[in-house]
């Protein structure tokens, strides 16, 4: 019984971190219908910025995330205005190619600045754990999961309760209708892209102390974030959080009760199952689409 509870705790903590990594992607992919192949690169750029602040100023990565969020949001805004907005007018499919190219460029820049060696941060709580009788809760993962919960709640509240949030929802569900009530989808798109890119600061902070990273680590996290978004349902922030937990739990339970070898196949299997049973994802409802929209 203790083993099961411990496994569930680990699954939830790891899943929370997975959800955190996927938050930005669920906004751009789900709300704007842009497959942002640079999301993993943005995440790693944030990770390196948090690493730099930790290395040079000893700043805790979680605190560093609040500073990193600003330039990352600005970067998102610039990328949207210079690349995404222009290409969407020509052919939305081109954004995939462009963001993929951006990811490669970012990777090359990071390698030039920091080299290809693995990096990591080790804040004071890195190798501490909370012991509850026979149960262990690693502080690092706990803080990562806590960050995921906070970011999910903040984004959800922002989407449901603010004018911008409602505008985002309107623009994503019916761009033409949104225009009629004074919401310009392109302007809203810029905001979403900035928020999505800015939110990578928190995923990057968690990544910096939870795992080792290199410039090409982006591939792994992009793949995992895509899995989370597909399972959770496009555009649903709570869906992404739930899907992250589901993936984490599935991975932990598989590792403990089936085999470590199967753990890396869990996300793929879960996607297959979800797409078969519920193609729109677990936490989104299908909505009526206007003809031609």
């Amino acid at each position: 019984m203790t083993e099961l509870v411990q496994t569930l705790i680990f699954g939830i903590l790891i899943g929370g971190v997975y959800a955190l990594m996927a938050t930005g992607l669920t906004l751009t992919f789900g709300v704007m219908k842009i497959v942002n192949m640079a999301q993993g690169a943005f995440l790693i750029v944030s990770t390196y910025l948090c690493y730099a602040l930790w290395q040079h100023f000893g700043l805790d990565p979680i605190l560093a995330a609040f500073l990193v969020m600003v330039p990352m949001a600005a970067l998102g805004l610039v990328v949207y205005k210079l690349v995404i907005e222009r290409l969407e007018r020509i052919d939305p499919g081109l954004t995939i190619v462009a963001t993929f190219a951006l990811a490669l460029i970012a990777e090359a820049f990071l390698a030039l600045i920091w080299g290809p060696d693995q990096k990591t941060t080790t804040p004071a709580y890195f190798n501490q754990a909370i012991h509850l009788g026979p149960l262990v809760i690693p502080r690092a993962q706990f803080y990562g999961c806590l960050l995921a919960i906070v970011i999910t709640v903040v984004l959800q509240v922002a989407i449901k309760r603010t004018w911008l949030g409602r505008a985002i929802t309107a623009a994503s569900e019916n761009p033409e209708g949104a225009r009629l009530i004074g919401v310009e989808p392109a302007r809203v798109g810029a905001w979403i892209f900035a928020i999505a890119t800015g939110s990578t600061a928190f995923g990057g902070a968690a990544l910096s102390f939870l795992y080792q990273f290199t410039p090409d680590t982006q591939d792994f996290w992009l793949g995992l974030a895509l899995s989370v978004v597909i399972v959770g349902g496009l555009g649903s922030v709570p869906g992404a959080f739930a899907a992250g937990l589901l993936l984490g739990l599935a991975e932990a339970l598989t590792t403990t009760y089936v085999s470590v070898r199967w753990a890396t196949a869990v996300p793929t299997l879960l996607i297959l199952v979800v797409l078969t049973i519920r193609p729109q994802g677990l936490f989104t409802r299908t909505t009526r689409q206007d003809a031609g929209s």
Partner: protein
Amino acid sequence: MSDDRYPPGTPLRTRSVAHRRRGRGSSRAIAIAATTAIALAGCAATGTSGGPGSGPLNIGMSLPLTGSAADVAKSGYQGYKLWAAQVNAAGGLLGRNVHLDVLDNGFDPNQTGTDYTRLISQNKDDLLLGTFSSLLNAPASAIAARQQMLYIEPSGGAASLFTRGFTNLFFAQPGTTESLPDLFLEWFGSLPADQRPKTAAYLTQDDPSASPAIAIFKTRLQALGVTLVYDQTYDPSTSNFDSIAAGVAHARPDMVIQGAVSNDGAPFVRSLEKLDFSPKILFQTRAPADDTYPGAIGAKNTEGVFTAEAWSPKAAYPGNAAFVSAYTKMFGSPPDEDAANSYTAAQVLETAVKAVGRIDQKALADWLHSHSVGTIVGPLKWDATGVPVGTAMLAQWQQGTLQVVAPKSAATSSTVVYPKPGWSTR
């Protein structure tokens, strides 16, 4: 890659023009060339080549200069280059300048096979030297055996490589993966029974160089009364060890043995650190010898971690200190194990060629089967299958340095840290 037949800096275009000019020769020239080629092919088929003073001595090799093992290949290639430079500075081999004929296989086993076929059949290289990893050495050594060429490999210690009946294959390290646990088990057996760890967790990357060693650890430690409490094999693509470490921590073993091949060692330790679980003994097969290891897990946290090493920069074998010094001078940084392994393989080849006095593939193999060769990793001798009659050194991180703790002939530290201290905050 490098081509010494043209002066340095010769443009590629010039080289291709030279090839085209050769192609425009008269029929008489073609006939002479064909006759020469047939004669050379005949020499190759019988395993003999020209004697002293007949042009450069071409030594073929295919290395993973690109691809996922490029970092290993870079230092390995540099080990070969240092050896060639030293041999040439000393007058060459059999009076001939040594030329390394290097192809890039991109860490692809199929390309490696193709490359060695080309080196033998098309480039007509006089001798071969091996590539890196068991994965690539498997096809390369098979082609060398088929063509009756001597094949000395710097790495590729998987036991399966030496069960194919080849008589021309030699492994230029002190021991294969099967001998990797020997010295650790010897030390373990020397501990008083009441101080020995009682339980062990085993974790293995699904790799031919890791799995056999861990299987031996399991069998022999069980024979010494150590109970298995966790045993898993993970995919080489595994990068997140949190769930695995959680399983290990839950089993609470006294010691953890990991068949870690490269970058899988550090993230596993970091996952154990996060859980605040530190075993009394941690043995990882290769990862702790990597340059990046102390930085990745924190220098203090390396204390007491065991590994096995084929070579140590500090080992007091003849020529080792000179190798470290020359390599550092030539390349600006100290050599790693891969550089040392390739240098050792070349040393073995050089010794055999000098002893036999001619390029005769069978005679060279026969000589190596019946003699011991002094190298920077100590004296090497082989059994009939090319397996070295020896064992890898037992090393342990002590105060930020990887020290050799056994065998005594190579030891750089007379103490062993046991039990391993807990994780420290860096």
